[in-house]
């Protein structure tokens, strides 16, 4: 990996100019450069208090379909966002220009916007310096990945597909992001992380399979194993037959669980409960889910990514949200904590925000069962690879609708009997989490409807599949 850039000029000098043996384009600015930008804005600002968010991103994504690379992109950019406070009022202005005139202008714009607001009685003074727990989510190998590295990996997957007479599509992405939060009371916090993601679909004439993984470390992503898995799913789901909809035992692989339970995340926000639009409104402390369900938010979990501080700079805390089926705690911003007589948990959004806060690092308790054990113990049920286009039908009963996709199988008498056509479901997540019979170990799962979380595979009784589609 290239050394950390000490200045923008140095970073620019290392930009790759050819694909053979070239280094990745590491445009990182580093903590000192982000601090320098923030301090310049503090000098330009005439607000009572000033807060500066600076984020910089370098990312690249190689996209393939029909056994070839068809889109291949890279992005480099910075965003500077300034919050001004004037006489109990606050507002935000942003730019991606870094020259002095632009920084002076964005500081003035934030102040002007703040001055015309109604006074906000809930506004708290900005935080002073905080003590943060360290996390390391920067992997040199990921930062060093080149377009040629990604292309060579994809070329192997395309070859695998051709050998199996399958068609492949997917993405392989790598990126670096860095973020600094500073304010005029002396707070300065910096976070950097790398991220690699590989997602692959294998298609046959009447079937498909899918697999996906993400990590800070590209070395932890086995593209060929994921493609092998997707290819096997596609082969196993040939000639799907239609079976009637109804209530079935469902064996949900981790991505399917993730994309369902991901819809719960904002319900754990104190502001959401206070606004009476959470499914936990009036239900805190009552047994809602099965005894086997515990959920917490934990940015420090080894399978999680993300900064250890929130939008105001509060250190994030590990919070037990659900304990043995009982919703116990919510997450709080400083403002919602003050209103609800609780302690802030370090989950607040950047201000001003009407949404308050949310947990983004959910971790579910798991079990010890393997997917094979779940299948063996099932007389009649459905094995679900992945779900798609999930939307909320009823926010208080927490009924979601969506489709199965890329590998749906009938399980009979303890074995996978055959592939079946995809179903639509309408299912309450509250009822689902009260009906979990078996769980696998919690793993980092990637889907398309939710941010990545740590969840197990689940065997759920009486999952409600309501209609069948044509494939």
């Amino acid at each position, binding site marked *: 990996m290239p050394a950390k850039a000490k200045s923008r000029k140095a970073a620019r000098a290392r930009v790759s100019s050819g694909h053979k043996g*070239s280094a990745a384009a590491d445009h990182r600015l580093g903590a000192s450069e982000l601090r320098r930008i923030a301090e310049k804005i503090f000098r330009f600002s005439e607000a009572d208090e000033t807060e500066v968010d600076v984020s910089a991103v370098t990312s690249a994504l190689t996209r393939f379909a029909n056994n070839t690379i068809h889109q291949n992109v*890279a*992005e480099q950019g910075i965003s500077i966002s300034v919050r001004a406070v004037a006489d109990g009022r606050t507002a935000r202005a942003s730019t991606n220009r870094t020259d002095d005139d632009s920084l002076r202008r964005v500081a003035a714009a934030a102040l002007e916007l703040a001055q015309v607001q109604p006074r906000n009685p809930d506004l708290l003074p900005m935080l002073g310096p905080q003590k943060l727990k360290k996390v390391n989510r920067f992997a040199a190998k990921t930062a060093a990945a080149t377009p*040629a590295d990604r292309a060579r990996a*994809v*070329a192997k997957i395309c070859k695998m597909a051709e050998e199996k007479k399958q068609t492949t599509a997917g993405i392989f992405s790598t990126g670096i992001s860095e973020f600094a939060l500073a304010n005029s009371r002396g707070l300065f916090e910096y976070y950097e992380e790398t991220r690699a993601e590989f997602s692959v679909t294998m298609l046959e004439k009447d079937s498909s399979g*899918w697999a996906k993984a993400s990590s800070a470390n590209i070395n932890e992503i086995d593209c060929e194993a994921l493609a092998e898995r997707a290819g096997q799913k596609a082969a196993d789901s040939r000639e799907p037959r239609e079976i009637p909809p109804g209530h079935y035992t469902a064996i949900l692989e981790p991505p399917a669980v993730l994309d369902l339970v991901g819809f719960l995340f904002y319900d754990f926000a104190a502001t959401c409960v206070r606004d009476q639009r959470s499914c936990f409104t009036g239900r805190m402390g009552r047994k809602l889910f099965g005894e086997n369900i515990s959920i917490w938010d934990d940015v420090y979990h080894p399978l999680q990514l993300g900064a250890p501080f929130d939008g105001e700079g509060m250190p994030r805390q590990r919070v037990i949200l659900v304990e043995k089926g009982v919703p116990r705690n919510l997450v709080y911003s400083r403002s919602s904590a003050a209103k609800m007589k609780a302690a802030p948990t370090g989950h607040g959004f950047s201000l001003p925000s009407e949404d308050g806060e949310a947990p983004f690092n959910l971790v579910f308790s798991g079990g010890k069962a393997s997917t094979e054990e779940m299948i063996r113990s099932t007389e009649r049920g459905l094995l679900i690879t992945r779900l798609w286009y999930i939307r909320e039908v009823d926010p208080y009963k927490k009924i979601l609708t969506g489709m199965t*996709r890329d590998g749906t199988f009938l399980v009979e008498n303890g074995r996978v009997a055959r592939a079946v056509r995809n179903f639509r479901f309408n299912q309450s997540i509250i009822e689902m989490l009260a009906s979990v019979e078996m769980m696998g170990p919690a793993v980092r799962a990637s889907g398309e409807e939710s941010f990545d979380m740590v969840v197990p595979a689940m065997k759920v009784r009486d999952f409600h599949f309501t*209609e069948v589609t044509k494939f």
Partner: protein
Amino acid sequence: MKHIADSAIEKALAGRATYADARVMDIRYRDISTKNGQVGRCSEGESVGIGIRVIADGAWGFASTDRLTPAGIESCVSEAIAIAKASALAKRHDVVLAPEQPFVDTWQNPFVKDPFRIPIESQIAVLLAADAEMRKVKGVTLAEGSMSFRRIEQLFVSSIGSAIHQVKMQSGAGIVATSFAGDEIQKRSYPNSFGGQHMLRGYELVEEMDLARHAPRIAEECVALHSAEKCPEGTRTIILDSSQLGLQIHESIGHPIELDRVLGMEANFAGMSFLTLDKLNSLRYGSEIVNVVADARLDHGPGLGTFGYDDEGVPAQRTRIITGGLFTGYLTNRETAAAIGQSRSNGTMRTESWNRLPIIRMTNISIMPGDRRFEDLIADTDDGIYMETNRSWSIDDRRYHFQFSTEIGWEIKNGRRTRMLKTPSYSGITTEFWNSCDAICSREYWTLWGTPNCGKGQPMQTMGTGHGAAPARFRNVKVGIASSE
């Protein structure tokens, strides 16, 4: 802007690109929201940068940067070419583009009032006035309002000689009343869900909405929904309001006609399409009264899919998608048009920002008006359900099977709108549904709705699309299954 874009093209061609285009974009935005009498979000911002797309070694590369200095442009071009050469490591054939003419032009959508020149305090006051009206209604537990404005200035330059300067001014606003009681959360929005109505217009659009005047009605309906009967389960005649029909068009016509989906390019994420190539000019998509166009021209209206040229320099066009019920057209770009042997792209390449690759996107996908008055349509219906304002939406990854819920419904009995219904929902198979359409209201009831939140692509891009629609009637539709036990 011009010298930056020109230098990118020169450098790309010098770097042995066989084709190059560059988009310099300067995007300015203002977002305001209110909740229960307080300002929620209030922010302004700008984002400026360049996206450079090249073909080298017969393959695509794209890179973007906000460093608009000579060195920044040079490294961005080098990166785009390096990426194209890497793409060539896994190519099956060279990229071929349908021919296109070079254009040197400027285009701007007309508007009356620049929303960025309206004092922000007066915009906040408009939202707070509507907020107060909603909260006057007992039972409303949450009153919310929002406005958003975008000014997108862009210069497109390409190696075939195009230089196209465009400015798009976009405005939107809406309000929502929410009521929690018992074990229900009910919600009503005006003039639509998804933050209301959005168009390529100025602040006059927001003024015409008259949010405060409509606030009491939606608040009262929201609270009344708690005591309404639940939408029955069964097979019924339904009439959809124009905003819900707009979303039905978006999901079950707009997405499946994207030719990149049809050709498998979106198979990993957004999915594919049931509209395989053999269905062009042969599939009976809908009944004979169903006529749908993709129309990006200003003549069609100032929709979120209106522009002068698309993001690969192809002029805005009108394409017949469904003609008298027959499927007659896809959304194409220069590459996919060539792939299926068509002589020209119909101009649907669009990008969210300077840092995203243009991809095929809906423009304004609209159903053409019919000949019925809305009152006559109700009077002509013996037994049905009228559904209004989308609440949830879902469709499978080939766009066959859908399910929609709306915020509110009314039962129609013997030609009259009768009792209110809560949790209305309907579901079906795309072609069966459109073939069951037997009446569409006339131009007087037709609205060009804006959908500001259409997601597609990897990395994900959010795009605004337009959908002109008038209320329409459909027979033998499955209803009520979303909340069945």
